[in-house]
């Protein structure tokens, strides 16, 4: 009764986890030193990054090999899927934190500073301050830079919404291709998705540039700028990660990996991409529009 289906799969001892830890350690140690102007900081961060890149090739390489040699049974596949699901859950929680903060500022603490509600007396500390959103006039601008104009919802953000939404469609189309075993559709779907992701990224970069140079909207322009960059910045970071993951599975698809039944890596990335999509919708609604 000990067929591959019956037997449990346990990977051989692997050096990758330890390498990952070393990479992360140097990366964050470098950040901490760098922020305090210690010259070893950038070096340490660089080492960390190199180790992490090495790690990606190594660890993913192993997993891909195992997958191709059919070492995984249904159990392992399910574990991967559930693991990915819980990982995305934690990411939801991470973004919910920032959305929660935005809510807190806009509906609780800023009205207090403006003289309404429970802690409304606070307003006597900030004479002349009234609350508006986007917050153009700060309670005290001494340590901050003056915001000139808030970011509108039209133009680039609106295009970006369309772009990300269509990328959700293309990735699904690629998935259909995979299920029908239509390689061309799979690969072209992925390439289209990657292209859309990159356009999104470029537009976002341009938007930041515009905000910094023309709108006076910076990290230092008070709470509006702070929340704006925190939310869009972390989202942009996730888009970047997602695009890299898409590239990996695109390359694998070109090499002919994945079958109709066995394509967890593809689905994991697709889930992630949809998640990034949904977060953007929230951003568009609460950061740009309302």
């Amino acid at each position, binding site marked *: 009764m000990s067929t591959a289906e019956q037997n449990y799969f346990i990977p051989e001892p692997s050096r990758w986890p330890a390498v990952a830890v070393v990479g992360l350690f140097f990366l964050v140690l470098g950040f901490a030193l760098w922020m305090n102007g210690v010259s070893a900081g950038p070096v340490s961060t660089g080492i960390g990054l190199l180790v992490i890149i090495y790690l990606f090739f190594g660890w993913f390489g192993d997993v891909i090999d195992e997958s191709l040699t059919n070492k995984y049974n249904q159990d392992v596949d399910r574990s991967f899927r559930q693991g990915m699901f819980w990982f995305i859950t934690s990411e939801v929680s991470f973004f919910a934190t920032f959305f929660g903060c935005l809510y807190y500022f806009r509906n609780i603490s800023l009205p*207090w500073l403006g003289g309404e509600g429970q*802690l409304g*007396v*606070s307003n*006597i*500390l*900030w004479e002349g301050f009234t609350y508006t959103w986007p917050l153009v006039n700060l309670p005290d601008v001494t340590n901050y830079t003056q915001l000139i104009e808030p970011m509108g919802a039209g133009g680039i953000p609106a295009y970006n919404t369309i772009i990300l939404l269509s990328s959700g469609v293309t990735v699904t189309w690629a998935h259909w291709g995979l299920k029908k075993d239509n390689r061309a559709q799979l690969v072209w779907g992925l390439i289209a998705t990657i292209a859309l992701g990159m356009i999104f990224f470029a537009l976002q970069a341009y938007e930041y540039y515009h905000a910094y140079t023309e709108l006076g909207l910076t990290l230092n322009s008070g709470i509006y700028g702070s929340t704006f960059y925190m939310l869009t910045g972390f989202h942009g970071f996730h888009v970047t990660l997602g695009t890299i993951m898409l590239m990996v599975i695109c390359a694998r698809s070109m090499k002919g990996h994945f079958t109709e039944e066995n394509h967890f890596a593809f689905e994991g990335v697709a889930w992630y991409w949809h998640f990034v999509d949904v977060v953007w919708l929230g951003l568009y609604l609460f950061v740009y529009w309302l």
Partner: protein
Amino acid sequence: MSKSKSFLATLSAFLLTLIASPAYADYVFNLPEPVAPLTSQIYDLHMLTTKIATIIMVIVIGIVTYTILKFRKSNGSEADQNFHKGAFGTWSWILVPVIVLGIDLTIAGSATDALKQIEDYSQKNDVTVKVTGSQWKWTYEYMDDDVRIVSNMLSKEEAGDNYLRAVDNPLVLPVNKRIRFLHTASDVLHAWWVPQIVYKKDSIPGYINETWTKIEKEGTYRGQCAEICGTGHAFMPIVVEAVSEDKYNAWMAEKKSAMAAASAEAASDKTWTMDELMSRGEKVYNTNCIACHQVTGEGVPGVFPALKGGKIATGPVAGHMDIVMNGSSKNPVMAAWAGALNDLELAALITYERNAWGNNTGDVVQPSDIKSARK
């Protein structure tokens, strides 16, 4: 109480109290005596929950003790394998929560009543005091009288047994008046807490919190800063002097005239001598700066720089004036003092720092210099 009390005596007294009494029998083992309606109400609530807690613990300890005495294997107790299948086993999951819910609601009920009292800010207040916490002292502003006092910790020698619970300028308040406190902070979080007259509320920089009280008994009440605020958190005592209305009014009048005199003096364009400035400067220094830079001017190595022989305190006067008036650009802990002190005080202070502790630069800074530096 003193250190000399033998430790053994304390220990045995303590253990005896534990055995002989519920925790609340003795004054020392409980919240200090409340002297305001609100704190009395809280005290009663505290007694209620303490009693409920004690009863619950007695029940739990009782059942467990009975169980471990009665059902031990060495007594020949046989395990009843079907106990959990009986009626009790079937229904206890409702029974226990319902009983606990009952107790919970009793507690919550009386707590909600007290809470409504506490949060009742609608009535008219007789005195409003703005309490500002700073690292590491308290500033009190009587909002209706335009009087401001700064309250610093007294040294060990001056305070004796009250060390860490004694200050130079206590907050003076009248009894039997409704007093409103506005809490805020200038740098980091602090919390103003005098358990006998008013519970604590956080002082949050940039925001204002409110509490109120009515003191019913004259006396001196002590407390401490209750929210960690850095190096000097243990050294931020609070003292409230509750006095009769007459005494309060007299005190207030005196304070006002003293303050008027001080500001008139600062505004005059008199040229001050070194000695005058030094003696005034020492006072200002001792109320505002010793918390960090210490009486000796030596600071705390690695945390607060020494002014004695310090680079800035013996360097160019302009740089010295800049850091004292505008604060440090590198370290926010060294705050800007231009707003809190008047021209004379600043001039005296800087003169003092440049000549005390053997700094002997010989520089004299006049109020007029400060005035022009303020631009």
